């Protein structure tokens, strides 16, 4: 068991080292993008909005921006980047010629995707604190929760990567799944505005809704029992998608 974790860790470490080698390009964009959203939507458009559910608009969207950043970093890491490593660089082939198994490679990739979520949440937090849109110290919880949320999106992403015929077809989940989720998960307006049926559909099918609800409870210091349901949904979905991803990858790569 310990050896298995070590081998997963070595795959993870490979990605971390490659990431750190090009840290400049890796650190700046995820840092800038949410900042722009916060300025344009939160403090720009937000001046016309008095308050959402009694909360100033920038404070309302701040936890959503963290959630989106975690989703994007984990999802894109385990789709496009993993696909490049698997298909073009043949990195997975090289690794499975060693005592590391394909299951451990995929687990390491997904944990790395989740780690990226943690890194970006950690980079954003000081900015949010600086703008006074995240309560302290409860907002520190954003960072460990980013790992759980990141693992969820990494698992979903890896399932797509396992079944995609080419890198171009990864655009489908990107535009048809991630983009709607970005807009309709209680991110920029409350879910309650949606008709009941749509709202229920969003809660059932859009993982980001649960992540946003938890993150918002964290930054507003308003964690309640209802968040346990969100957490349970995430735990079940993460388990399903991560194990499915490993199975699908085995089917794709063990020939």
């Amino acid at each position, binding site marked *: 068991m310990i*050896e298995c974790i*070590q*081998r997963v860790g*070595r795959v993870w*470490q*490979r990605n971390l*080292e*490659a990431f750190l*080698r090009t840290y400049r390009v890796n650190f700046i964009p995820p840092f800038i993008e949410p900042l722009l959203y916060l300025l344009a939507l939160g403090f720009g458009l937000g001046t016309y909005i008095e308050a959402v559910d009694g909360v100033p608009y920038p404070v309302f969207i701040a936890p959503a921006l963290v959630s989106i950043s975690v989703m994007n970093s984990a999802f894109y890491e385990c789709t496009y980047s993993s696909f490049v490593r698997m298909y073009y*660089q*043949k*990195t997975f*082939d*090289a*690794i*499975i*010629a*060693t*005592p*590391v*198994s394909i299951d451990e490679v995929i687990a390491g990739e997904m944990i790395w995707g989740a780690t990226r979520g943690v890194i970006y949440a950690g980079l954003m937090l000081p900015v949010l604190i600086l703008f006074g849109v995240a309560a302290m110290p409860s907002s520190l919880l954003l960072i460990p929760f980013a790992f759980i949320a990141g693992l969820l999106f990494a698992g979903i992403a890896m399932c797509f990567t396992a079944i995609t015929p080419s890198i171009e077809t990864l655009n489908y989940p990107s535009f048809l799944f991630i983009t709607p989720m970005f807009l309709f998960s209680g991110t920029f307006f409350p879910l309650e505005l949606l008709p009941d049926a749509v709202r229920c559909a969003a809660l059932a099918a859009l993982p980001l809704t649960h992540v946003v609800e938890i993150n918002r409870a964290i930054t507003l210091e308003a964690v309640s029992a209802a968040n346990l349901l969100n957490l349970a949904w995430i735990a079940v979905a993460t388990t399903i998608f991560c194990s499915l991803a490993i199975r699908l990858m085995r089917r794709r790569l*063990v*020939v």
Partner: protein
Amino acid sequence: MKMIQCISPKSGGSLEVFGMDVDTHPREIKSRIGVVPQENNLDPDFTAYRNLLVYARYFGIPKSVAEERAESLLGFMHLEEKRDVLIEKLSGGMKRRLIIARALVNEPELLILDEPTIGLDPQARHLIWETLRGLRAEGNTLVLTTHYLDEAERLCDRLVIMDHGRILIEGAPAEIVREYAGNEVIEVERTEKTATLLDKLGVAYDVAGDMLQVFTDRADDIVGELLDLCRHEAAVTVRPATLEDVFLRLTGRSLRE
């Protein structure tokens, strides 16, 4: 090959490496073999040196040991100068040498090479042959596949010729050549005259395009007859028989795709 490496599932029968079943002990087997794949799968995110270190880590080799081995393998493969160079900046031959170095990082008891010199220039091929012969001389076991029969002839103690997944023959290269092609090959232009003469002499020959090939141990006599008959009319050459002749005789001349 992939089944020996415990990467592909066994398609049938039984397969043991180092006396261990590939289905039940893949990890133990993989930790004791080195693999040189046909396709370059070096890690483009790292330098030559880091490629070796990162790969050693997958085997659980301690860092200090890995560093020492990486340095000495770069030396062994004449890559010291490229130590801190990214993979994309290496030539084809250097990449192959680095892949071989990488395959040696766990000090394997068995080295598996899939087409080790494919697409390389003659200098690079000779350098790789030299290293492989060096490894063999140190007592390492090498298993290699190749379409280059001159390569097989130079490197192999024991050789298996396969076609469509079946073993046709096996043995030492020199013995195989002697047995299946004789010592020498006479090649003569294919004309009515030459064919008739060979028929008359009772010599068996193969038709290879516009040439006739005679595999024989008594080349001098036949060449004498051929020259007497058609000097200035048809070119006659004699050369030692090679594995390529054996291969073509056994598997036919039609293109296999």
